[in-house]
């Protein structure tokens, strides 16, 4: 463990660390664009220049620590060089923050205010380049904003291994471009490069011009797209900035999804499916309780279900593997002795969907199979003869496979034709409306928090099960 001096302060560093890593690990911030802990060192932005007493300036990200070295991260020389590097970086940058999606969370913007703050020293015309270049059906590229840190190309070479991006031409007309025979659209991790981009060069087509970032806030959540259970941040409108006059659906819709860095599960990445949680959660919702397709009040439906359960002699439950650990425990507690329970797979892989790979994607496309099996075993659903009631919890059950004559109590969140075929249908809340935990395939438990309020006509499974088990009427 060599000790080095940073700004006169003794810092313990690991022998294989760089000065940048040692500084960051000890709470001394050194600005950088191109460096990223998960990527190889490119050392091209030159922003992390620091001074080593007696050796002059060099970049901290490629400087191995050596015992006794004296590093200055804030000397007048270093400050002057940082200013100059920002002058160079903004030389041909359009500085169009006013119409840039990255504004508000842009590293270049932050550094400009922190380390430069001066107008450009240049009077020359800027080098023009392509705007709105189609990298894929998900990502646009603004080459004028690009600072060529090469984080995106390194990501596709080192992490997603799609090799989809490269640099075309050279000098100040260098452009990031897709490689001819490796379309970025086929890279299931491509959207990570949007987060990696320290400026507004790589833009999400979904999120383009959708919201200024300062009107949004992130809520920690878990991606239900597969059994990996990557932790994510679901971005939605801040309560203070709820829209009053425009489409109020904006207040309860997912603006975007980004990874929530988590070394135990997904590191700093998520796959594109995780970015598209709106496609899962913003399908048409069921918000009407029904008895054989006839709309009724929620309480009436719960009462009817309670009576059916009470009257059944051989009830079977098909438990959802999209349910949280809390909901599963509630079911076990209140109804576990009443039902013969099987864990059902709510969701099968879609045609063409990548089944599994070495990075994140797992074959089981449900978030909490492990949590459900822990409580209800891993036997495949097998309905015994004489089953007279089936409680179907969640999606993925074809009613035609259920025994003829058995009554069906169906708990589901989304609008489906079969909702009306059940004897009792109760609409359920979705993940973004509640708090809970999922257990991933490795046994790691991750938490999700509510982003939006639950509508009043929709039941919450945790309280619903208590009501169903109660001898008398209890309001959910």
């Amino acid at each position, binding site marked *: 463990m060599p000790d080095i001096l940073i700004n006169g302060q003794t810092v313990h560093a690991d022998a294989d660390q760089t000065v940048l890593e040692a500084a960051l690990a000890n709470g001394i911030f050194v600005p950088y664009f191109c460096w990223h802990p998960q990527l190889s*060192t490119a*050392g*091209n*932005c*030159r*922003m992390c*220049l620091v001074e080593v007493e007696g050796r*002059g*300036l060099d*970049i901290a990200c*490629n400087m*191995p620590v050596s015992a006794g070295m004296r590093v200055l991260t804030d000397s007048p020389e270093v400050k002057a*060089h940082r200013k*100059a*590097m920002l*002058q*160079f*970086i903004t*030389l*041909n940058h359009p500085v169009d923050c006013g119409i840039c999606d990255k504004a508000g969370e842009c590293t270049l913007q932050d550094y400009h205010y922190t380390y430069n703050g001066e107008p450009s*020293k*240049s*009077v*020359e*015309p800027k*080098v023009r380049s392509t705007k709105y270049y189609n990298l894929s059906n998900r990502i646009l590229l603004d080459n004028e904003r690009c*600072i*060529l840190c090469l984080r995106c190309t390194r990501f596709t070479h080192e992490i997603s291994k799609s090799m989809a991006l*490269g*640099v075309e*031409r*050279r*000098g*100040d*007309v*260098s452009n990031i471009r897709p490689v001819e025979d490796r379309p970025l659209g086929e890279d299931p991790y491509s959207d990570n490069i949007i987060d990696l981009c320290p400026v507004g060069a790589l833009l999400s087509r979904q999120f383009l011009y959708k919201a200024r970032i300062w009107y949004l806030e992130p809520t920690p959540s878990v991606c239900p797209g597969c059994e990996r259970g990557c932790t994510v941040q679901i971005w939605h409108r801040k309560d203070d900035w709820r829209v009053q006059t425009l489409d109020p659906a904006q207040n309860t819709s997912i603006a975007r999804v980004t990874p929530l860095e988590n070394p135990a599960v997904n590191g700093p990445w998520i796959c594109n499916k995780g970015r598209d949680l709106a496609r899962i959660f913003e399908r048409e919702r069921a918000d009407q309780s029904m008895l054989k397709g006839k709309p009724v009040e929620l309480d009436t439906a719960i009462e009817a279900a309670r009576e059916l359960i009470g009257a059944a002699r051989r009830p079977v439950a098909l438990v959802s593997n999209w349910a949280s650990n809390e909901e599963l425990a509630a079911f076990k507690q209140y109804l576990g002795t009443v039902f013969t329970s099987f864990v059902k797979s709510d969701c099968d892989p879609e045609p063409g969907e990548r089944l599994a790979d070495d990075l994140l994607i797992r074959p089981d496309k449900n978030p909490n199979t492990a949590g459900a099996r822990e409580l209800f075993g891993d036997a495949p659903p097998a309905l015994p003869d004489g089953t007279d009631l089936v409680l179907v919890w969640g999606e993925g059950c074809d009613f035609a496979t259920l025994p003829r004559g058995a009554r069906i109590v169906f708990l589901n969140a989304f609008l489906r034709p079969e909702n009306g075929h059940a004897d009792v249908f109760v609409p359920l809340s979705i993940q973004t409306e509640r708090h809970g935990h999922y257990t991933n395939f490795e046994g790691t438990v991750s938490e999700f928090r509510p982003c939006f309020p639950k509508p009043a006509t929709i039941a919450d499974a945790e309280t619903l099960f208590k009501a169903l088990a109660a001898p008398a009427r209890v309001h959910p």
Partner: protein
Amino acid sequence: MAGRQILMTFPVTATSHTLAEYRARGGYQALEKALRHMTPQQVTQEVTASGLQGRGGASFPMGRKWAVVIPGDGQPHYLVANADEGEPGTFKDRWILENAPHLLLEGMLLAAYALDARHCFIYIRGEFDLPYRRVAAAVEEAYAGGYIGERIIGTGFDCDIIVYRGAGAYVAGEASGLIASLEGKKSYPRNRPPRLTVKGLYQRPTVVNNVESLSNVTGIIAHGAAAFRAVGTEKSPGTRLLSVSGHINRPGVYEVELGYPWRRFIDEDCGGMLGGRALKAVVPGGISSKVLTAADIDGLRLSHEDLWGAGSTLGSGGMIVVAEGTCMVRLLQIMLRFYHHESCGQCTPCRHGTGWMHRIVDRIVAGEGRPEDIERLYYIAKYNDGTTICGLGDAAGYAASGMLDKFRDEFEYCIANKRSRYEGRIECPTS
């Protein structure tokens, strides 16, 4: 003849580059001597003792570079001959490649023996046609003659030499950019550490040497380090091939003993200035070395220490002679256009700095200069110096600051009067 000669020791004829004539001149005897009577360490020691400095531009002591590579340390080593001669004004390696390719090959084999390199590469500039054909033919001859390949001249030493043609990037002449290109990647120079002698080609210890440097190894081993040191000055032993161009009567490649008087070289060896005009300036070693005025070079010898003392360098040996009446603003514009065009675009200061300086000087030449432009050029040059991955960024800054240091008045004149003092002339009027 500018002093004693080591490399240009034979008359160039239509066949003087062939193996037969090279052997008739005593070729491949140094290789015999080394392989049969010397250990690899002795070869390195001899080169270290000779004080040979790299001829590619940085003048780094060759033996010190070699000494980092430990023969027999259980990993492959590589040797690369840098024949990507692209520094403007420089065409001296071309003379060796065309006229003495076996001298290079023998030097490479000696180096490979010293460095325990099983495979060597010659990275030759893509635009070189005759040099490529000559080198490729020489490699074939040497394979047929048993000088390259397995069991070289009947000893246990194996070595292959592969000729690789570049695709036309100045920055591929930078050692680490060359290695990236050789690996099949875009020619982006690498950050040090690690040095190439620790992790170079395919992440293995690699020595990249200039063609002229390697060619000198042959003589050092043949005649000994002392004989080499007897030529040149104490701090700059040996000779340099200088390619002379510009406003000079006899441009071409000259072998100059280091320490030879500069004015005498220009006035006598090169036949004096074109059209008998006065000397205005000299770019001594490719445009990446700082320009010197006629007054600066008075009394200077052509040696590394004299040039360093004058704030410049012999660099790559590409001497551009500039006569009185030439517009230095235009000259700088041409230099900066080159750097702008050749910047690989990897690191920030060079990617933007070269273009920025180029556009400023373009504007000055066009008669739209502003008084603050000079200060701005200095600013860009200052923050390009030492902040870039490779030397190209530094060099572009040196070109600009060197020119401004020496000819600031011309720039001021051009800005104030919106026209060049010399009508933007860069050709030398002969009448």
